[in-house]
């Protein structure tokens, strides 16, 4: 059972109403993509924002991650919209 530190940024942080949380993952949530789908099941804004059709970026330990990236205990996982700097 892995515990991860979640961070949310920009529009996602505002719409979901949360900046950070510590999450204990169920045994069947082992990848970044599975984590996103699991969070979408919280419903309401979570279901809308994390719908597979929406563009959401996932970073694991400060690197952009694909849906298949495995998660480990103690990971820092961030969810955010496509970036708009520069």
């Amino acid at each position, binding site marked *: 059972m892995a515990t991860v530190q979640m961070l949310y*940024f920009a529009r996602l942080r505002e719409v979901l109403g949360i900046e950070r949380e510590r999450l204990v993952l169920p045994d069947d949530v082992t990848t970044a993509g599975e984590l996103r789908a699991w969070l979408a099941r919280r419903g309401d804004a979570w279901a809308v924002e994390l719908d597979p059709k929406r563009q959401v970026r996932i970073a694991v330990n400060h690197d952009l991650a694909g849906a298949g990236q495995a998660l480990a205990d103690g990971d820092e996982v961030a969810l955010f919209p496509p*970036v*708009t*700097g*520069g």
Partner: protein
Amino acid sequence: MPVRVQPEDFDISAEIRALRAGRNDVGAVASFIGVMRDFNEGSGVTELTLEHYPGMTEKALQQILDEAHGRWRLQDALVVHRVGCLRPADQIVLVVALSAHREEALAACAFIMDYLKTRAPFWKKERTPAGERWVESRASDDEAAGRWLGGERP
């Protein structure tokens, strides 16, 4: 430091002077400054707030510089990106690339900006007469970054 994320403004002359200090092998200095304009997507913009992901942003910018160093022969390169509250005409970002030759300095500068636009975790929120809104990412930015894939060297 080749990468800085800061609320403070920057001075391109001072930055280039510091980067060039002690070097006599530089033949080309290419630079880019991104500036805040007072319009976007058809409406006026009076204020811009730039958010970032402390830790990841610096790491992503360093990775972009490392990749630029791998593609071109650069003596040095620098990125300074501001965060926080900005006003129209304020400077947002500075990129400087030093090389022996202009082609490499110019290409590296363009590459760093294209990758920064699509890979570095910054987000812009605009204040307009109709209220605040988050800036949406653009497909044209993805296309600009994509042209560097496959080893293309304009």
